[in-house]
């Protein structure tokens, strides 16, 4: 880790990922795609913020949403899990297989984060979505199906169910005190814990990149015409 790990104020960009304790909301559905997470009409924004009110827009509201609508005037779908009173102010989303499949839109993690989520737990994630989450300080955790089934069951049975996620220790703790370990890439963990900007980190290797580029220019000059 020696080259990557220079926590210098210059490279701080995201909020540091602290221990998260929060209400858990269960989204019991496989293959939740990025079109469902944030429908395309909201992708026209040129900003990074404000997507939370349109998270899961087509499931969350009964009327059709367009950019610029006042969310407080819209009709909520009472059957959608995020709208149920017991899950208000949830910070942790429980999901099923292949969460975040589909497009590369970072607007999907932006919307989840803007809504208030800090952690998404699923048995599997789509690759691009998974990468995008780490880039903005949202933690995707992969847990095996059996543990996930248990968590879904416990959340459904217990109103006010919370989990505590400790990234440093790579452990989540249930209200009953049960500890579940999870794995996470070392470099990504380091960036998340320290709120590091990976562009700044990469630019520490600028000389190496230039050297590589010179070599490539010589070997494959047609790429630089």
């Amino acid at each position, binding site marked *: 880790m020696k080259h990557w790990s220079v926590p210098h104020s210059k490279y701080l960009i995201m909020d540091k990922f602290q221990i998260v304790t929060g209400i858990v909301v269960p989204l019991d559905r496989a293959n939740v795609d990025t079109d469902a997470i944030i429908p395309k009409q909201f992708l026209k924004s040129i900003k*990074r913020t404000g997507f939370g009110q349109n998270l899961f827009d087509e499931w969350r509201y009964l009327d059709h949403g367009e950019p610029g609508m006042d969310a407080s005037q819209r009709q909520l779908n009472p059957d959608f899990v995020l709208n149920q009173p017991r899950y208000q102010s949830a910070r942790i989303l429980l999901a099923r297989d292949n969460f975040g499949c589909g497009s590369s839109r970072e607007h999907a993690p932006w919307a989840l984060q803007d809504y208030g989520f800090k952690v998404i737990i699923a048995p599997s994630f789509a690759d691009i979505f998974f990468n995008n989450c780490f880039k903005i300080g949202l933690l995707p955790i992969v847990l095996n199906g059996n543990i996930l089934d248990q968590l879904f069951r416990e959340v459904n049975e217990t109103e006010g169910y919370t989990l505590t996620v400790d990234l440093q220790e790579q452990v989540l703790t249930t209200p009953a005190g049960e500890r579940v370990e999870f794995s996470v890439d070392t470099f*990504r963990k380091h960036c998340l814990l320290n709120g590091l900007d990976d562009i700044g980190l990469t630019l520490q290797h600028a000389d190496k*990149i230039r050297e590589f580029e010179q070599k490539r220019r010589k070997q494959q000059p047609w790429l630089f015409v």
Partner: protein
Amino acid sequence: MQTLYDKLWDQHLVHTESNAPDSMALLYIDRHLVHEVTSPQAFESLKLAGRKPWRVNSILAVADHNVPTSGRDFGINDPVSRLQVDTLDKNCDELGITEFKMRDVRQGIVHVIGPEQGATLPGMTVVCGDSHTSTHGAFACLAFGIGTSEVEHVLATQCLLTSKSKTMRIAVEGKLGLGVTAKDIALAIIGRIGTAGGTGYAIEFTGDAIRSLSMEGRMTLCNMAIEAGARAGMIAVDDTTIEYIKGRPFAPQGGLWEQAVAYWRTLHSDTDAVFDKTVSLEAAGIRPQVTWGTSPEMVTTIDGCVPDPAGVTDQGKRQNIEQALKYMGLQPNTPIQSIALDKIFIGSCTNSRIEDLRAAAKVIKGRRVASTIKLALVVPGSGLVKQQAEQEGLDKIFTAAGFEWREPGCSMCLAMNDDRLSKGERCASTSNRNFEGRQGPGGRTHLVSPVMAAAAAVAGHFVDVNELDAPRMP
């Protein structure tokens, strides 16, 4: 002995901390394609941080998602869409980035224009803030979609911070049947391995059925690799690849061409290369495919029926099917051929190239779109595809049949412009995703090949293109 993926990886590796699997590495990026939807925030942050693009001439930009496909002379109606396109224009002008603007004949869908211009060349790493960047793997490129933070990272550093994928070989051997296309191969593969089947893998497509595909067909197939969950799909270089590239505006010329071709010829997996996983399909067994649900893996053949969830024991899978059928407004056991359609869409980065239009026009020629179809659209992938098609008279064939002939863009694949389905409308679409609301809120999408979309337009319902018996006018 190396796979094609391993060769491409090694060629671009700038720095890595360790050789452990999943360890993060810096990969050099040769070509950065940019469009209006996933770039504004990246340009903004770049500026705020006081940074500039590392290598401006590695970037090619185009607006495709928001552009209207008709009435372009009047500009973009929707002010929000207009601002996004204007923002791209402004960013490119300020930074000196090559951009094909909306009225440029070279404008089109980013994954169509890259190869068309020769801006996509074998052996390159190609990235774009768009998941269908896998398309460019058809040229033995390592090509994948990235998020906006990564767009900014590549702009600033010319590198992507990523980890190595596992490798999967999908071998399709034998000869494809009549009326069976690259799109059907793609959907058959996704039906077999599922939409998460390729997660964590880079897929290489091999076999004589793949080698016999045109570059257009190979692009269709690699385009859909992402729908199988794989970030990248790729195909080795052969004569077909080199023939396609020759003479294109951004392609090397003269001595550089010979030098490049010599290198490109090495871009294949070594014969004894080991893949982490291998899947085999018989080309002859692939029938024309039609999706019935809200995920590309929910697919069957033209002679099939909508599944019955009652027969599915796994509770999760049963619920998925029930939810999909409810959304799609379909009853279990309905024969695919009896499903009537409201709209037809021929276009998208999957199927809007000249070969796609020729194949669809061949089916349409002398026939009429069924009176029950409310709208049948052809949206060419680029201004140059459109021009070529018009020179061949394809536009006349489509319009005489009742199709609308439009300007290039992403259009009704994702309905960010005005082309969309209304609630409950059912569409035969040559695009890549049948997700809920993808083509418009409440819209119902069935993914098919261009010839199957054309046949459905004529019949008003799905029909095997080989059995379409509607008479042709002289």
